[in-house]
Each structure stands twice: as C-alpha cells, then as structure tokens.
C-alpha cells in the first residue's frame, strides 16, 4: 500500500509464516512417526514439508522486507 501504516504484504507474510510453520511442523511429525493420513495420495512425496517450508520461507521474506517502520 502506498502511504504510511502496516503494508498488506506484512500481514500476508505473518499469515504465511504461521501457516507454513504449522504445516511444516506437521510434516515433520508425520515423517518421524510414519503415520500418514488415510485416503491421502502421494504421501511419500512429503508435501507438507516442502510446501509448508516454502510458505514459511516466503512469509519470512515478506515479514522482513515489509515490516512496519521499514522505509520503502
């Protein structure tokens, strides 16, 4: 957003960090326990780990780049 205040990208970053962290964490638990949800395909690809990780990294980039008080 143009002007002062918290940019929308910061909110998005926060949300991605939270979501990515939760999904990545679940993926690790799933991997370590070997207990995969019934009925879900391609669990061998461990999508929660790499997808959750990607979301979290993207979120961190946005949070850092657009944190409040950061000049443009």
């Amino acid at each position, binding site marked *: 957003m143009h002007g002062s205040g918290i940019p929308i990208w910061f909110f998005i970053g926060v*949300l991605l960090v939270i979501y990515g962290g939760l999904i990545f964490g*679940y993926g690790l638990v799933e991997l370590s326990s070997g207990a995969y949800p019934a009925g879900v395909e391609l669990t061998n690809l461990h999508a929660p780990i790499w997808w959750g990780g990607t979301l979290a990294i993207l979120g961190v980039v946005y949070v850092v780049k657009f944190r409040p008080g950061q000049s443009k």
Partner: protein
Amino acid sequence: MYGLVPFTHAASSLGSLPAMLAFSTEPLAHLRTLDIAVIAIYFAMVIWIGFYLQRRSNTSEEFFMAGREMTAWIAGLSFVSANLGSLELMGWAGSAYQYGILATNWYWIGAIPAMVFLGLMMMPFYYVSKTHSVPGYLGLRYGKHASIVAAISFAVEMILMSGVNMFAMAVVMKVVLGWDLNFSIIVSSVAVAAYVGLGGLRSAIFNEVLQFVLIWGGALLVPILGLVQSGGWTGLKAKIVVNMTSLTGVRPDSYFHIWRDTGSFAANPMGVHWTGIVFGLGFAISFGYWTTDFLVVQRVLAAHNLRAARMAPIIGSFFKMAVPFIVILPGLLGLVLLQNPDGSRRQLVGEDVVNSCVAPTSGGPVAEQAKCSAAMASTTLSDDYKQKVLNGAPGMELHSYNQALPLMMVRYLGPGLLGLGITALIAGFMSGMAGNVSAFSTVWTYDIYKPLFNNKGSDSHYVLVGRLSILIGVAVSIGAAYLVMHAHGIMDYVQALFSIFIAPLFAVIIFGMFWKRASSLAGFLGLLIGIIFSASLFMWVKLDPAALAHVALSPDAKPMAENVYRGLWAFIFSALVIIVVSLVTKARPDNELEGLVYGATVLPKEEPVPFYKSEWAWAGLVGIIFIALNVIFW
C-alpha cells in the same frame, strides 16, 4: 464476485446448489484440529486487519475509495481477486471436467483483451473524472436519470448477490464439511460486516489480496501433485484420450483444444461456436464485465495515480492468464485420477442425477430406484457402475461436477494443507461478499442517498451512512440468503440480473466515453431499453427452452452458448438505440464533456518512465503471451 461465471455456467451450477442439500449426508472431508486452527487463524487475521484499518477510514475518501492510495500491484491483485471467488473456482473446475480446456476461453479471450483495454483506454476517463463509481460516471456523462437507473440496478444486484454468495458458501460448507447452514451464514456475515464496516474499501481490498495469496497457497499443490501422479501433461492427455474415447460424442482430444473444434456447435463438448466466443464472450460480455462492473472497477479507482490505475488491470491480466492452472487443470486431472474405493474411475455427473439418487441417511440402496435409473440413463456410467449406485455400495455415491475441486483437494491434501485449501474457499466466499457489500455501500451513499435524499451532508455524515449501509446491506443479504434457501427458483433470476444488465451498460459507457455525439437521452434510453431487451431474451428462453436455438443461432447450441449470444444481441440492440436517439436529439457541448469523453479531454501528461515501467510495454507483453497461449492450445 462471480465474475464471468454467472453469464454462463454459474447460473446453472448455482441454481442447482439447493439441490446439493438433498444429498451428501456424509461430508466429503473431515477436518482435524490443525485444519480448524488454520481456519480460525484466518478469521482472526481478517478481524485484526479490520480493526487496524478502522483508524484509517475516517473520511469518505478513505472509507469509500481507500484513500486512493493503492499501488498498482495491490489494485491489480485486488482487481483480479474480486473476480476469483470460490464458486468460480469450483464451477470452472467442474466445467473443465465436463468440457475440457475449452473452459479456459473464459479466462483468456473472455478477460485479457478487456482488462488491457480498460487499463490503456478507459481508465484515463474514469480516473480523470474523479468519479466514485461507475453509475457516478454515467451521472457525469449522461445526467441523473441514467445514473439512477444504473445505481438502483447495481445496488439491488449487489445485495442479492451477496445473499446468494452467503447461501452458496453455507451450502458448500455443509456438503464438503458437514457444517450447519445457519452457523456458516452467521459466522461469515458477522466477519464481513466487521471488517468492511470497520475498514471500508481499504479493508475489502486488503482481504482480497490476502485471499489471492491464500487461493494460490491452498490450491496450487493440487495440480502439481496431480500432474506428478498422471505422468505430466503428456501422460494426462494420453489417459484422457483412453478414458473418453467411448464416453462422449466428440473427439476425445477436443478436451485439449480451445479453438480447433469451435467451427460447429456439435463438434465440441460445450456446444458453442467461435463466433459466440469471440464476439459474445470476448467482446460484449467480457468488456461489459471487466470495464463497467463497478465491483471490479472500484478496485482500480483506488489506485494512487493515473499510471498505477492503468497498470493495475495489466498486472491483473498476467495473473488472470495463470488462473487456469489452479482451476481448469484440477478439473482435467479429476477426469482420470478420481477413483472410487474399489479402484474404478470415479465419474462425476450433473446435479440433477445426484439429486435423483439420494440414499437413506441410514445407508443402503437408493430410495427412489426408478427415478435414479432414469436419471442415470442420460449419463455415460457403465451398467455395473449404475447398479452399484442403486445398491448403495459403500463409497459409490454419486458426486457432481462442481465437487471436482473439493474431491481433488481431499485426495491430495492431508491435515493442515486441507485446512489451507478450505480456508482458500472460505476466503473466496467472504471476499466476494465483502466486495458486494463495499460496492453497494459506495453506490448507495454516492449515487442514491446523496442525489435523492440528502446532498448537503457533511463528510462524516456520508461515512456514517456508508457504515450503516454496510450493516443494513449485510442484514438484507442474510435475508436474501434465507429467501434463496426457501425459494430455490429465484436463484436463477438473481444470477441472471447480472448478465442481463452488463451488456447494455457496456454499450452506454463505451459510446459515452468515445463518442461525443451520444446524448443524455440516448444514454438513458439505451440503458433502460437495453436492459428490458436483454431481460426479454432471458425470459424467452426460460419460458421456452426451444428458443435457445434462435438466440444462439443453432439447434445444436447448448445452454453455455445462450448467454454469450444474449450478451452480444443486447449490446448491439443498446448500441442501435444510442445511435438512433443520439442522431435525433441534441448533443451536449464539448466544454461540458471535458474529462469524460475522448476528443473532448486533455489527458494529464505522465512523466516519462523507462520502457520497463511503461504500461504500454507491459500490455505488449501481455498480448504476446496471450497470443502464444492461444496458439499453443489451439
């Protein structure tokens, strides 16, 4: 929010939503704690944004126009996101399952040229006139009468659409998750009223951008994993050809071509002709929607300068071209990947068939065997498959085309990821409602309340009216949602309002913007008579389905073709009214048209920028990609 869907597909798919309540006693998905947490965090975030933005929404310019300080990126993403609702995602995934990538035309030729035209040619007039709304522009160009007709039509349509959206969300949540209808309606309406009422348009735009990211984050994984499992694009095509060879009356490879088989209505699964796609969809309907529908145009009007306003639709068009990857592709993948518990290919069917084959809640054979058999006779299900359905074999219940996307999500998304996918759907619904309500609030305050009831109020008075109109709008939407719930037939008509209105409105605006001779009376009559003409065509086909052959110019035309041709005829009719009336009435003098009409307006000079920041350069790139995509998927 329904974007281009209502013109064609959603009118039928949404009309059948109430029927979805009649079945699916067992929800498609079961959420775990992690999924619930993901959804709860989303609600907390949107409410937080609403409260945060409240203090920046004190003046009318801030509340209704987001302070006109959005960057091109935010305005562009919001512009395209306002059209990317959950029903659009689910509806078009279902369409892709039925018709193949022909449905992609609604994303490419049905959007891209119009978006670029809006940015390059029309935004200067919208922006320079400093109008708050599209009816506001009509008021400046043609006078009060045309503006009032447009404003009232638009306000009624927005509020009804919000109610339909609310109801549709409740139905989908019930079918997919088993949630209570009242719970979904109340939670979504309270959340929307809170964040739009607090933060105004800025809050709606923020949440649309958020929704856009969530949709990609939640839905992109499905086609990626689907392509992995199907052996890539080549493997998918090979499997579809094998599966579809014996099932349809058209060539199976028609599923991968967007133009090749549109030379005749009968040669493609959608039953449309290229003339309807190019002139009806690609011109009358697409330009009507993307350049005159205030719900989307309002997002661009919030840009912080003219260059940003021109760039916003062009930025949006890049993302629009990519949307088929998360909408059309999952539908195609569903054709070959969805399976029944016994390993056989799961075939989706129409809502009418599903509704005819309801099993008792306690399980067991289908209740009305004869009705179900008759309904299934029109499908390509095998006899063995039909018998299993009739017997109520475990896991063999029928699912509709519209459930292709949720079924694909359930197939690939485990805990957390499924919650993210569901959150994307909820976000799509809620931002749809928010878009409708925020646009209603602006049109009500500026184009109805101010000119008709009180034009001497203070700025804070109009902000208060805007906030109250949001609360009242949400309350009326809830009423509309329950009305639709109890009178299912009106849904078709509510959806049709939108498609009936848009082509005449486009004719009036495009002539008003590019033809100085267009007179005030011509604008008013062109809009009014055009709407009546368009509504008459709709009612003609509604009352006599055989009339479709006349409206769409072929006995082989299918319902998909009706709206594209109706839009085209309505545009042509309105254009003729405008031309004829203008030629026999007095035009406004040039000096009154400054800032409103091409040829009477000196556009502000924009500072020169390097080519990579020029909207013309980016529009050129959009054009190249657009042509390339159409050639590749010819």
